[in-house]
């Protein structure tokens, strides 16, 4: 290396380190809470490859790598964006209730000697990283909407913009001290911030990019459902970190969220296969997996606010509403939200955010609020408004971003590339060999 570069790098690095310095005996940091948050962070990280497999199994063979890649590379891309400016925008010092400032960009100015205000018993860096994994998976969720036809370069640019202009502001509003939290919106682990934002973004994406060629042909059959089941299992597993980790401590609140998460998921999976049985004559395995994801989505905003029986009710609702959205309404409307991101995350997220306003109870979580069914109709109103805000913001901004990227780069691969498949056309690789 040239000396000048080294010196420049050095100067850049110094403040970061100053900031990172801490007292090992930092009072207030609890080893149990820290262990739990670090594990939860790892669990949430694993969800993105889980999602990659969940989606990858559902596409055609020729698009498997392209689909896996769209999730996998988000870890890398948003993982850096988060360190460099995303965390600062979302959780940095609040400006007018709308956005965090760039004061914490690159984590340079962070006071890391101790914990943050967000989570006083764990290292600030642990909280930052935990939140980072949420920022990573959210744009990855959207990729299901434009599966099998998006240009990789355009996808990268879009995702970076989306994380910056949709995710980071929304996260700030709800969790970073912004106006929606002042307004009273309840969102335990990301109904508004993660699922509504990605679900509505997905709807916008499906509309802007248009349907796949030759849709409806037998060859659209999932090429590898065991891969999808594995992905769903990893998502379920990781979601314990997502929801119970959002307690930010290892105590009764985490246990409540853990139980609510699992219970709603069970109920939703069973509900979905019952709908399958009713409408199609057989319970499907893809239905069980999809139902489980719908339940996980719906319980996300509510997990730390509701008891087990409410979780069952939320899970049943998720099963029914998402089933209807995916299996009944979508085929009629005819847009090609290829892997049902809107139907599962959009609809499930909306239901979950509203259900939080119905089933929340201070009996379950004394630090929470009561919902409509526990005598506090106002909270339901708050949830309705919050949902409308998130729905509108995510849909509109995503739509605009996609239109811009389409102008500048072009969103969609060419017809020949689509026939050839993303694996070869975008990545020059094949998922599987054919000859032995």
């Amino acid at each position: 290396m040239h000396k000048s570069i080294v010196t420049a790098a050095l100067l850049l690095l110094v403040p970061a380190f100053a900031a990172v310095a801490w007292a090992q005996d930092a009072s207030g940091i609890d080893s149990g809470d820290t262990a739990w948050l670090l594990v939860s962070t790892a669990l949430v990280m694993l969800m993105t490859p889980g999602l990659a497999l969940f989606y990858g199994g559902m596409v055609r063979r020729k698009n498997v790598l392209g689909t896996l890649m769209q999730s996998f590379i988000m870890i890398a891309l948003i993982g850096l964006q988060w360190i460099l400016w995303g965390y600062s925008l979302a959780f940095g010092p609040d400006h007018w209730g709308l956005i965090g400032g760039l004061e914490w960009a690159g984590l340079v100015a962070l006071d890391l000697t101790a914990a943050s205000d967000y989570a006083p018993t764990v290292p600030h860096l642990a909280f930052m990283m935990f939140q980072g994994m949420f920022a990573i998976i959210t744009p990855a969720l959207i990729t299901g909407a434009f599966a099998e036809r998006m240009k990789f370069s355009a996808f990268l640019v879009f995702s970076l913009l989306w994380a910056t202009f949709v995710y980071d502001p929304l996260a700030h509003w709800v969790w970073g001290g912004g106006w929606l939290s002042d307004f009273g919106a309840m969102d335990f682990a990301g109904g508004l911030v993660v699922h509504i934002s990605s679900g509505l973004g997905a709807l916008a994406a499906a509309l802007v990019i248009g349907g796949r060629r030759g849709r409806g042909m037998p060859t659209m059959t999932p090429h590898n459902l065991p891969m999808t089941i594995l992905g769903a299992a990893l998502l379920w597993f990781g979601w314990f970190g997502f929801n119970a980790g959002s307690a930010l401590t290892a105590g009764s609140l985490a246990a409540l969220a853990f139980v609510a998460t699992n219970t709603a998921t069970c109920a939703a999976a069973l509900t979905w296969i019952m709908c399958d049985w009713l409408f199609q004559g057989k319970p499907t395995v893809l239905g069980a997996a999809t139902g489980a994801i719908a339940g996980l989505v719906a319980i996300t905003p509510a997990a730390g606010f509701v008891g087990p029986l409410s979780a069952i009710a939320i899970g049943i609702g998720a099963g029914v509403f998402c089933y209807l959205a995916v299996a009944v309404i979508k085929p009629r409307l005819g847009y090609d939200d290829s892997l049902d991101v809107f139907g599962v995350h959009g609809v499930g997220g909306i239901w979950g955010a509203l259900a939080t306003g119905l089933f929340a109870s201070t009996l379950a979580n004394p630090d929470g609020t009561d919902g409509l069914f526990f005598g506090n109709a106002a909270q339901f109103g708050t949830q309705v408004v919050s949902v409308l805000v998130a729905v509108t913001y995510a849909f509109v901004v995503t739509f605009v971003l996609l239109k811009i990227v389409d102008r500048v780069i072009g969103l969609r691969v060419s017809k020949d590339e689509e026939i050839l498949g993303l694996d070869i056309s975008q990545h020059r690789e094949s998922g599987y060999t054919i000859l032995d």
Partner: protein
Amino acid sequence: MKLIVAIIQPERLESVMDALDGEGVHLRTVTNALGVGRQKGHTEVYRGVREAVNLLKKVRIEVAVNEEFVDKVIDAVVKGARTGNIGDGKIFVLDLPECVRIRTGERGVDAIG
């Protein structure tokens, strides 16, 4: 009787099947195949090592028919498979002296349909 073997692009299978059905030819056997033809292949890259891939994915259809259906089948396959681009494929017509339906033991013209 003839055994007609057609090699086509995988994404044309649907329309070839529809075209065959349109001609009243409902029986066939399909296998995956890889073809090398005039259509140029592509390059794949694994950790910086380039690999020319000439064997492209194709679908192989076999249809056994009586003589009077031969042209119908050829026309249907051409209709369903043609895009006008290199790689559309080939049809091979073989003589078929004998045919047996396993279920009934019928032979020849009776067995083929």
